[in-house]
């Protein structure tokens, strides 16, 4: 646990609006090491989701530099950033965000096919699904036929399929009841235990308790 896998240097995000610029993030600098489990907390509107979007390469900072595994993302074009999202970053959303047209199995397999241009014949998809507790018969269902907890398990398996360096979780238990939340957090904690780097946005102190470190964001700054 030494080399920084995520490094933010004076990152700012400003949304230009006709009524005046809105600063979502201003001058954020932080470093997250490999294997760390970091929780980002803060009241709603503090900019914690915006911060996660920057780290996840879904958005570009207005100024400042973001280094992922030592590489500056400022110089990357959309194609390269998309490539990072495919291979190096696993995203877990509050609303699960599974593809409705695909079955659970296919949802997990999708990033694998996009990356490798072939079906998974290594059993990786099946293993990941088993790890998160989705059996073969469940994995044939479409997302809308499954419960929230099941969907989030599938989303976790999907995030892991290309073996990403970083796992980003945006309120992963926000749409789940407390019992299911607990199960999901156990899975995430287990992943951390196996050495995975996790960054999780949450406003729930209980959930944040699983993390090694908590970063609080207030008004777009590290508090």
């Amino acid at each position, binding site marked *: 646990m030494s080399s920084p896998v995520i490094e933010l240097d004076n990152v700012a995000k400003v949304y230009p609006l006709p009524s005046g610029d809105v600063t979502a993030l201003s001058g954020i600098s932080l470093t997250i090491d490999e294997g760390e489990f970091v929780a980002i907390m803060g009241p709603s509107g503090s900019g914690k989701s915006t911060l996660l*979007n920057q780290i*996840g390469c*879904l*958005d570009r900072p207005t100024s400042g530099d973001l280094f992922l595994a030592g590489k500056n993302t400022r110089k990357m074009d*959309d*194609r390269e950033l*998309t*490539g*990072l*999202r*495919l*291979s190096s970053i696993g*995203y877990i*959303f509050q609303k699960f*965000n*599974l*593809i*409705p*047209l*695909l079955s659970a199995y*296919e949802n997990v*397999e*999708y*990033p694998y*096919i*996009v*990356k490798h*241009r*072939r*079906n998974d014949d290594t059993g990786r998809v099946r293993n990941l699904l088993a790890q998160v507790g989705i059996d073969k018969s469940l994995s044939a269902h479409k997302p809308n036929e499954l419960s929230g907890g099941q969907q989030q398990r599938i989303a976790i398996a*999907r*995030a892991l399929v*290309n073996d990403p360096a970083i796992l980003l979780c945006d309120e992963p238990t926000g749409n789940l009841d407390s019992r299911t939340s607990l199960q999901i957090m156990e899975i995430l904690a287990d992943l951390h235990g196996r050495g995975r780097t996790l960054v999780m946005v949450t406003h729930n102190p209980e959930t944040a308790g699983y993390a090694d470190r908590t970063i609080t964001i207030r008004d777009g700054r590290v508090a």
Partner: protein
Amino acid sequence: MIGKDIILALSMRSVRLHFLRSVLAALGIVIGVVAIASIGMMGANMTLSVTEELSDMANKLTVTPYRGGGGGMMMGPGGGGGSSSDDDDDVIDEDQFRDIERITAKYGTAYTVRSESDRVEIGSDTGRATIYGLDAEIIREILTVETGEYPKSTTSVVVGPTLAERLGLKIGSKIDIGDPDEGSTTTVRVVGILEERGMTMDLSTDMAIVGTDRLFVGIYGGEGEYDQVNVVVSDIENVDAVKTAIEEELNRQEDTVTVQDSSRMMESITATVSTMTTFVMAIAGISLLVAAVSIFNVMMMSVNERIREIGILRSIGTQRTEILRMFIYEAGILGLVGAAIGAVASIVIGYIVVLGMVGSTEYFFAPASIGYVPMAMAVGAAICVVTGVYPAWRASNLDPIEALRAE
């Protein structure tokens, strides 16, 4: 299990998920393809059958007196006017015929045609018909009698099948030629009924009475004067040479004759048919335009409905080009399915249209005709893909974060 090309698989699933909407959009393409293909085939079949009919006479030339101005003229300059008026401009005289005969001697044969339009009376029925006067030998050579025999005497004639049917003529029927109010009539006897000749430019015998020269001169006079000289060239290669030679010889000082070959008639008919076909096809093209609008609408709906899904796909690492491809595929599937159904339907409907409008499906499977099916198919599918470009481009350029926020 999903295939290797997951982008294509997603497009297909989207089409299947919105099956009715997709079918309706594809239906527009089906109609457009059918309209264009069947009208195109109709035009091609018309042209082909006219060309076939006309190419039978590609080796024939007609020489008619020069009447100034326009070339395409009908015979019979009216009434009984031709009886004995010695107007050089309206007839081909014996000397001119000898010249033509001399020029054409080594290429084929020339024969004279006399013709007049006159009143005919069969029993109590009266009507008008063209009366041809030809050499008795020539009648035997040029025309084919279906029933009966060729005319030998000055009172026997053969009649065209259309005229025979219309006036109820049979072998042995008597026809009175001429208007009793203007003078005497001549009674002739039908000895044969001709085979149908269709549309020709040398002799239009279907609605005519054909008799010998002697009969004709007997009625209308005009010894040594002809309305037309027909030339049959044995080798089609020489048609132009013969035409030029006649024109140079007879029109040396001033224009006295007009020489026509069938190519001009063919050209003008083909041009007319193709103008008409193009015009009707343009109207049919509008149906494809309407189909394009409906495909566009469906594609925009598909993009708008799936904004969130596009956001998901982008956020987990799907490239812009792959999103673009996904929607182009979707439009392409609609286009291909529509065009394929349209192709099958247009063969069926085209066949019925051709049968109804042209009357013969002899040329239906000729390349020039059936070729309209793949052509219309390609146009239909291409229109779909082109129409899908803008919605697909829009989808691929969505901001992933904005897209994820959509409900």
